[in-house]
């Protein structure tokens, strides 16, 4: 520890000390010493008085002022008021409360690395990515070491920085990875092309997956102190507010984050040990400004039963890996024959970690695995999709999946669940919010005759409201009514939502007891697969529903749960419908 230079940091200038202060200090020194040295002449003009006591009086007065300043730096009320004598000390002092401004200036985003080979690839962690002038980023890697991109058949070692590449079309693969850096130039938007300072022929393109978020302005010590006074929470994942504080600091692009901990309704992973002690569980739900980011992949599926028979239909089945955990699937179409209608598509969801993320809990996490079954469309008995012949005579067809995701979810998961950050004794999982998919929101209103309604403005406001609506914000009609009034309505007569809770993008959930390969044993799997309950939305009260799996604890439990702490809303702009009521 460096010895603090108290004189240069806290001592006042000698000229700042008033005669009254000096006299008071001298008098007290004299009284203090008189107890043990009653005969000592300490009066002014005496040798000891003038040459010892008086200088000591200066020192004492200065020291007392310095101590007052030091104690002021310890008193966060004063610091919050802007009175700071030693910024370095206060900054370190606030670090004890885990209140830091270190990462605030960094901009964040997610880049997509497109690869033209499907073999393992190592990217130096020092690689810098630039997006025009003034925008330079480095990989946000939670673990030591470089970034390993694994071949599609590979897997990532625990506590290493890695992603498995995912095919996005017939000869290209992709990974998304978070980046941090400075963005002083033109803001980086989704799709912008980037450059690497360590290019390799294996990488064909680098682009922004989402709109990047500018770093927050530097938080002053006074603001930090005020924050510490008002709510002292450590920026760790041990507590709900600690987790919130940590996430807000590390990931400024998150629009909402909701830690669900033991005894919360939404916490279904809580396990009571034989000693009656609950194991610590924390489900951290996050949603970023990149939520519902549209994406699409082209995947090639093998055809099972090319010659169908009764009970053995011809169908395409494969395990599908997404670049990011999907939160909604818009469409699945043939890549080469998009006009051919597909029906009877089934998606089954499994998990890579049945203990940490069993059943529906794996939904919207990086632990979810998906198996896709597409029946071969027929015209009579004639297959409508043309296939290509691959190794061993297997027939294949390529399909395009258009889906939406939040690319920040795996980025947050990498950090939150890393060994350095995850709290000891608490099992942390990072999830996207459970999606309440609204197929329509019909708003009926009355307006004064002759008034032109600004419906586009209202639609955009309502769209943005739902897009960022997640705990601690809870749905309220007031925002919608306010937007309608502002747009010109005199009354809002009704607001009618329609939709359903989407527990997963899959139709079926594979039970943890099923150990076979779902692709090879599709029918067996479907025989035991679980169907999540259907919870439709038809009233405003449904938007704030709380529902816990009715079969919890039973063999057919799906572990679905929705409540105020883990719900978000997916409402497309076009699905906001206005109806004018003529009175």
């Amino acid at each position: 520890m460096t010895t603090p230079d108290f004189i240069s940091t806290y001592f006042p200038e000698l000229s700042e000390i008033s005669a009254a202060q000096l006299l008071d200090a001298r008098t007290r020194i004299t009284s203090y010493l008189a107890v043990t040295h009653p005969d000592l002449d300490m009066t002014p003009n005496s040798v000891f008085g003038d040459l010892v006591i008086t200088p000591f009086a200066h020192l004492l007065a200065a020291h007392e002022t310095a101590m007052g300043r030091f104690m002021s730096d310890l008193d966060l009320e004063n610091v919050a008021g802007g009175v700071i004598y030693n910024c370095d000390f206060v900054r370190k002092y606030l670090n004890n409360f885990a209140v830091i401004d270190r990462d605030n200036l960094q901009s964040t985003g997610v880049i997509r690395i497109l690869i033209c080979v499907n073999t393992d690839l190592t990217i130096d962690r020092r690689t810098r990515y630039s997006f025009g002038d003034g925008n330079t980023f480095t990989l946000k890697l939670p673990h030591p070491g470089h970034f390993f991109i694994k071949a599609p058949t590979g897997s990532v070692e625990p506590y290493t920085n890695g992603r498995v590449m995912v095919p996005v079309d017939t000869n290209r693969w992709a990974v998304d990875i978070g980046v941090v850096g400075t963005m002083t130039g033109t803001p980086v938007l989704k799709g912008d092309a980037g450059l690497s300072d360590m290019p390799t022929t294996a990488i064909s393109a680098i682009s922004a997956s989402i709109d990047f978020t500018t770093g927050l302005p530097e938080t002053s010590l006074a603001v930090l102190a005020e924050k510490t006074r008002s709510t002292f929470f450590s920026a760790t994942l041990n507590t709900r507010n600690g987790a919130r504080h940590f996430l807000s600091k590390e990931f400024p692009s998150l629009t909402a984050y909701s830690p669900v901990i033991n005894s919360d309704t939404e916490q279904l992973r809580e396990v009571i040990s034989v000693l009656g002690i609950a194991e610590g569980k924390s489900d951290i739900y996050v949603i970023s400004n990149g939520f519902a980011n549209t994406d699409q992949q082209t995947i090639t599926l093998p055809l099972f039963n090319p010659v169908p028979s009764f009970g053995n239909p011809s169908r395409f089945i494969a395990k599908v890996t997404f670049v990011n955990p999907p939160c909604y699937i818009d469409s699945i179409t043939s890549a080469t024959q998009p006009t051919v209608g597909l029906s009877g598509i089934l998606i089954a969801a499994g998990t890579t970690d049945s203990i940490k993320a069993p059943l529906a809990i794996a939904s919207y996490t990086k632990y979810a695995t998906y198996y896709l079954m597409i029946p071969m469309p027929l015209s009579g008995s004639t297959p409508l999709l043309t296939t290509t012949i691959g190794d061993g005579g297997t027939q294949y067809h390529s399909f395009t999946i258009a889906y939406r995701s939040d690319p920040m979810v795996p980025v947050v998961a990498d950090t939150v669940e890393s060994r350095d950050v995850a709290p000891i004794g608490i099992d942390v999982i990072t999830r996207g919010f459970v999606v309440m998919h609204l197929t329509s929101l019909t708003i009926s209103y009355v307006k004064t005759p002759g008034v032109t309604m600004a419906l586009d403005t209202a639609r955009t406001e309502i769209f943005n409201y739902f897009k960022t609506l997640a705990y601690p914000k809870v749905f309220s009609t007031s925002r919608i009514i306010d937007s309608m009034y502002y747009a010109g309505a005199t009354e809002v007569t009704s607001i009618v939502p329609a939709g359903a809770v989407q527990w997963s993008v899959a139709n079926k959930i594979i039970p943890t007891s099923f150990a076979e390969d779902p692709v090879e044993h599709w029918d067996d799997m479907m025989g035991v697969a679980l169907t999540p309950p259907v919870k439709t939305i038809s009233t405003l009260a449904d938007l704030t529903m709380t529902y816990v799996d009715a079969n919890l604890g039973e063999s057919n439990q799906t572990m679905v749960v929705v409540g105020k702490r883990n719900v978000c809303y997916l409402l497309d702009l076009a699905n906001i419908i206005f109806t004018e009521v003529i009175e």
Partner: protein
Amino acid sequence: MKGLALQFSGASGITLAVTKKVTGFNCVAQNGMVNIACDKGSDVIYPDKGTTLYKDALAGKVPTFTDAYHYSNFAALDTRFFLKNQAPAGVEVIDKVVLLPFTYTTAGLVLKASFSGANGTTIGITTTT
């Protein structure tokens, strides 16, 4: 009361007599001597400490014995009041300070000083005028 002694005479001027100490009313007298020699305002803690005698003399305000009497009286008065205000407990309180010019030499003005306590103790050279 006791304190470190000062040597007021000698080639080096006023020096600290490390091996000697002053006690009782001698401390008061010694402090009075120091006060006379100090400039008023030289101590930020005690604005009343010191006199203007030395500065006035250097400024040429004391060309005659009459002037010397005049300024010495003021210096004695200031010193008396200051010593009385700062009188430590348990020591005879100052009652009278007499400061009179004795002679002019080539080195300067020679003064005679005496300090009398309330109990009658007198230290210094008593002079009548």
